[in-house]
């Protein structure tokens, strides 16, 4: 067993964006420019109020990033400002306890 109790965990934010496929590359570029050090990408299916899931060419993606609260706020603001008006996109944020906190960029609480 991995001695998890003895490992120091740090609280970061998990930002999840589910969006239509057409914005995938632009989103990933922006997220990294805003300070994310990595991401996880899934191809997903679904339907929402905009019915984007009806067309194959408008399939959806889900992007997860673990970032500091400051970066999380920037990412959420960016998505809201650029994409909420005309695109199928949802975004939500959760707190996560991560191991090896330094992987995810600077974190104020760590100092």
């Amino acid at each position: 067993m991995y001695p998890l109790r003895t490992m120091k965990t740090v609280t970061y934010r998990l930002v999840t964006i589910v969006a239509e496929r057409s914005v995938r590359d632009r989103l990933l570029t922006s997220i990294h420019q805003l300070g994310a050090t990595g991401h996880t990408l899934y191809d997903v299916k679904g339907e929402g109020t905009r019915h984007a899931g009806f067309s194959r060419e408008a399939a959806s993606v889900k992007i997860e990033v673990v970032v500091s609260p400051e970066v999380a706020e920037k990412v959420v603001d960016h998505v809201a400002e650029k994409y909420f008006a005309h695109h199928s996109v949802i975004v939500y944020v959760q707190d996560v306890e991560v191991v090896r906190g330094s992987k995810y960029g600077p974190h104020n609480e760590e100092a």
Partner: protein
Amino acid sequence: MADVLLASLLSPVVLAFVLGAVAVAVRSDLEIPEPLYQALSIYLLLAIGLKGGSALSVTPLADVAWPVLGTLGLGILTPIIAYNVLRRLGKMDRTNAAALAAHYGSVSAVTFIAAQTVVALAGYPPEGFLPALVAVLEVPAIIVGLLIAYSRGERAGSWQEAMKEVVTGKSIVLLIGGMAMGWIAGKDGMAPVEPFFIHGFQGALTLFLLDMGMTAARRLRDLKAVGVFLVAFGILMPIVHGALGVWVGLATGLSVGGAAVLGAMVSSASYIAAPAAIRVGLPEANPAYYLTASLGITFPFNLTLGIPLYLAIAQWLGG
């Protein structure tokens, strides 16, 4: 024409499309997995590129030059016609009219493939280099559509991103790349890959059409939202563009079969390249309009009635 129509309607390709639509109608659990759909579309686009390229390698430049120029002209003219029809007759707003114009000026590769098959079956084998015309017809209309929209006010999308999508999109890369491969390899060089890319082609097309039937039938759910005008537009605009395409084809020296296929290409509405570029460049435009019109109305119309009609027009004008 009745014989051609019947032969076309009863071909496995059209029947597979019908089966796909029936599967959606009866809520079957049939589903073409996304990776298979992607693989089939890559296969079909690369295969027509390869075939076109190897045909191009044995065609004198003079035979190709006029049809290419004619097609380029059509690619610029047809979105302008479509835009004006939508604005003046349909009273549609600028953004959605420009988006639809880009789709109806651009080309559907599957309509092209189906037309080639039907026309050849009817005894009018088209020229082998026609895939080159598909590549020529695909891009200009999307640029014209975006230009119309961007020249008339601020846009939420990105012009640069949309241009990148148009020029580096998978259909253009596979078509032009496939043609370059076929041209460099030549007729003899193509021999080793023929069993896969030529002999397997109609089978792969049948599977692809099964998926298209399902996608088209799903789009019909949005039919109420698009309205009567757009349904009429989705049938009548292709007939006008198709007749224009046949006429230009014959005038630039194509055979009756070649002109009929060019007519089908010009009449068709894009549903891969144009939606991808328009979604990036004109996100304000409602996809329900352009996807439902091009996939739910124009594609099924062309597949069943349109192609035999363009062949009849070509026979009448060129016979």
